[in-house]
């Protein structure tokens, strides 16, 4: 990748999550994928009521329990121990995915290996003969949620762009991603391409474009 002389500091994982959380309005029902998306729950602005869904049968997921106060029967989809908020409820897997597939979730936030300029998402397998393929609920969430936002690093550890013209990894779903939150920017997937909504302080549009594998449109 292009060498970049940085006078900017990429957002941390927590900062990506916090930036995304700012955009979730009160009253939305939201499913969070594993990784950075899980952190979103911790960053919803104080006093704003957002309801989190876990596909393993929980609505109203609360924060991680205090140490020594773990209910071992209460885990989220990432198998972490969680709590249940007042107003929470339990249901079985077919009912849980009825909620997902039936478009009853306002938002799903997922991680990604790659997102294409058409909003295609690849997040479940590194190749068609992955030695441990594992799809989980990603395909259902990608098709079912009313809107899908991705939270991820802008480039791979090796510096290769994750936002590309087309995905090289097997697709989770085509054309499903509406917005991408990375350590560098917030990008909207529009009908005619990728529109930058916001960049981190100090980052130039050209620097951002240099780290992106598809053409970006400048902020409106």
């Amino acid at each position, binding site marked *: 990748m292009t060498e970049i002389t940085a006078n900017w500091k990429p957002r941390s994982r927590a900062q990506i999550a916090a930036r995304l959380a700012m955009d979730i309005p009160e009253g939305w029902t939201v499913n969070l994928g594993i990784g950075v998306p899980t952190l979103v729950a911790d960053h919803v602005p104080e006093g704003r009521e957002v309801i989190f869904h876990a596909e393993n049968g929980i609505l109203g997921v609360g924060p991680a329990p205090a140490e020594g106060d773990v209910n071992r029967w209460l885990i989220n989809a990432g198998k972490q121990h969680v709590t249940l908020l007042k*107003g929470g409820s339990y249901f079985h897997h077919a009912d849980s995915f009825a*909620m*997902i597939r039936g478009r009853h979730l306002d938002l799903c936030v997922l991680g990604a290996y790659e997102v294409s300029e058409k909003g295609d998402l690849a997040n479940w397998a590194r190749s068609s003969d992955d030695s441990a393929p594992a799809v989980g609920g990603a395909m259902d969430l990608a098709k079912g949620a009313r809107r899908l936002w991705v939270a991820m690093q802008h480039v791979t550890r090796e510096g290769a762009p994750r936002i590309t013209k087309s995905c090289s990894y097997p697709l989770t779903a085509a054309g499903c991603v509406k917005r991408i939150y990375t350590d560098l920017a917030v990008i909207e997937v529009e009908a005619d391409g990728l529109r930058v909504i916001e960049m981190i302080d100090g980052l130039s549009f050209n620097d951002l474009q240099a780290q992106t594998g598809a053409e970006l449109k400048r902020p409106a």
Partner: protein
Amino acid sequence: MIDKFSSSIVEALDGLTDGATFLLGGFGAVGQANELIEGVLETGIRDLTVVANNAGYGKVGLARLLKEGRVRKLICSYPRIAGSTVFEELYSAGRLELELVPQGTLAERMRAAGAGIPAFYTPSGAGTLLMEGKETRTFDAQEHVLEEALHGDVALVEAWQADRWGNLTYRAAGRNFNPVCAMAAKLTIVQTQHVCELGELDPEAIVTPGLFVDRIVHIESGDPQG
């Protein structure tokens, strides 16, 4: 703060339009959102499609809506009205279109709508008059009918308890079609006998989680009469 309660029936029914498809909970006299249905009558909207197991019960609720000529089409499993001839008169006079659907298919078509399943195969009704013209397919050497999801614009639901997130419980046979209707409509409006504080309902015993519910109005309508 999320608060799905409306202060009146009028407020809860705001924005309904002519031609809408209504999904009505209830079986016999039990679990019918009669006050909401009569509120719909008051709004003056017409040309409605109504999905319900019965064509009303007694002379209230749906029976009144039918009698006042607001319903263009009824999608229903058992349209006879106990203690009333409203349905038969309208239907015989050709003033009401009827789509008769086996009861289990009616429930499953709404559940499918709520679950994002556009169509499914069922053995119910295969080889009968009701399925004429429908697509069929053989599975396990048995004929099955392709049935499509049945979506509503509005669901009118009667609950026993509700909280401000829209979590619901029902009472005994009052559950019936109500949770299925709640899943299947763009706008789900609930009348509840009791209001609970958030956290008061047992999370293991909530039947309709709040994400299926849009508006709630507190109506202590008392025991079903029928």
